């Protein structure tokens, strides 16, 4: 897929996610909107995962560690056909397929249920190590939030991946700089962020997380015979709530669900993107 078509996928996914959280009266739309672009690039272009190869033991693995962004994750997955689109219609309702955190229960293409932060990367390293040891060329993509980098397991895993040279791992950090209550730097300072990862033995790319051409380039890895011997982290600089002016950079939309009026305004804005 080209950047034009992944951009169209992202727009469709934003619309789906907004409708889903509106129906489900659930939260975390800001976190979903900030990472939909990078997820659309993974599912729509770079990662070798599709409805046709879900059972292939050598397909790529995408783990969304920031499980609270379930509406965004499921929206992208539904818009590429991995899960049925109509599963979004009763998002979070009693007896629905899809709940408010990414869950692997009967959901194809989801390997790990997340929602407690700091679980996706260690789990992804297990997959990466298994691939290395068994000669599989599959790649492992782990999508994390920047707030998640407060977790100790993030840095334990940074050591493990660096030490073992797991160059089949690519982490995409949704660097929207806003966590549960305030700015990441006022909560628990992460900067100099890129330098930290570099010091742990990672290859670091620092890009605009809404620029699809840049995302495609950053997520592409060379042939396994031509790899760096280093895990890669792509710091995707994003805007929380991206695409809806009144949600952008607002902590409120980590929690609030759009009412009918907000939904109409938001849909008009994202459709024009």
């Amino acid at each position, binding site marked *: 897929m080209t950047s034009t078509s992944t951009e169209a996928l992202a727009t469709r996914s934003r619309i789906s996610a907004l409708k889903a959280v509106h129906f489900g009266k659930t939260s975390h739309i800001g976190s979903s909107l900030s990472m939909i672009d990078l997820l659309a690039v993974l599912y729509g272009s770079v990662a070798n995962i599709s409805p046709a190869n879900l059972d292939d033991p050598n397909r790529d693995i995408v783990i969304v560690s920031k499980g609270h962004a379930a509406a965004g994750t499921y929206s992208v997955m539904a818009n590429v056909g991995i899960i049925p689109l109509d599963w979004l219609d009763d998002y979070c309702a009693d007896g629905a397929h899809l709940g408010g955190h990414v869950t692997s229960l009967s959901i194809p293409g989801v390997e790990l249920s997340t929602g407690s932060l700091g679980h996706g990367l260690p*789990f992804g390293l297990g997959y990466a190590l298994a691939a290395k040891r068994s000669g599989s060329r599959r790649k492992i993509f782990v999508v994390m939030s920047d707030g998640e980098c407060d977790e100790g397991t993030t840095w334990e895993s940074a050591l493990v991946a660096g030490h073992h040279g797991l160059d089949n791992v690519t982490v995409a950090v949704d660097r929207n700089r806003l966590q549960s209550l305030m700015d990441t730097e006022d909560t628990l300072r992460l900067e100099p962020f890129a330098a930290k990862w570099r010091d742990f033995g990672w290859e670091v790319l620092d890009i605009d997380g809404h620029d699809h051409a840049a995302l495609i380039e950053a997520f592409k890895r060379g042939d396994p015979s031509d790899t760096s011997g280093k895990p890669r982290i792509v710091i995707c600089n994003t805007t929380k709530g991206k695409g809806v002016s009144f949600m952008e950079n607002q902590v409120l939309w980590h929690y609030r669900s759009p009412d009918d009026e907000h939904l109409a305004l938001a849909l008009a804005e994202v459709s024009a993107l």
Partner: protein
Amino acid sequence: MRDAFISELTILAREDPSIFLVIGDLGFSVIEEFAAEFPDRFLNAGVAEQTMIGVSAGLAAAGYTVFVYSIGNFPTMRCIEQIRNDVCYHGRAVTVVAVGAGYSYGSLGYTHHAIEDISVMRALPNMQVFSPADPAETRALTRQAAASGGPGYLRLGKNGEKNLHNGPVTGPLSEVLVLHDGTDVTIYGTGSIISLALEAREALLEEGISARIVSVPVIKPLPADIFDAADGTRAIMTLEEHTLFGGLGSAILEFAARSHVRTPIFPMGTIEAEVGRHVGSQAYLRQKNGLSAEAIQSAARELLQFA
């Protein structure tokens, strides 16, 4: 028990290419041979227990049958949420192996005493809890854990425990194991502390009380017919080197209540007021916690007065 475990795991790994051993930087003089023979199926995750369990869950998701080895509370309490979410919720083939059941690490202190682990592991969905009493049970349970294909917790003593069985134990262990028959009281025990029940049995005989000693190597799921082993005796006791809150005693009492069993049951375990207050060997700490042959003897005598 740890030698029996690693020896059996090594044999298993030769038979089954999916066996993978992950350690949390512990296992000096235990894991070296396995690591040398199977370098591609061995990982020292470092002193990073949470990541160790997450990595193990990922390895299992990719098809490996994973054993995670460490000591005391490090592979359980330190990483309980990883075990709960990444392993148990997804039903992954990961067996957590902890050396140091109860007071095995005696003078190393409370941080190294595993006396609440059964309760915590037992509470997790899909989790099997294995608690061998001797090297023979350890071998059988190691195989059983691997064959189950699901989450397990294997609680080992340390090393040098006596064999309580005559010869090998053949699994899978879906039943309790009667170590010594008796006619008055049935003592269900788990782990190496059963040896104290066997001592108490001798002393009880001298006062005319006949105790049946039963090993419970699988605490979860408890065998459905567990109370058949107490048929013909008037009272039941449980014995564990573990807190009374949620361990073997709790499991048996809960099961008895649900099964409408009317036989009086008396559970023996650690005394909370004594926990972490003493320095000394495993034998000393057991005794300070009311876990001695004498204490079992007098508890049995008293219980039978009401039975």
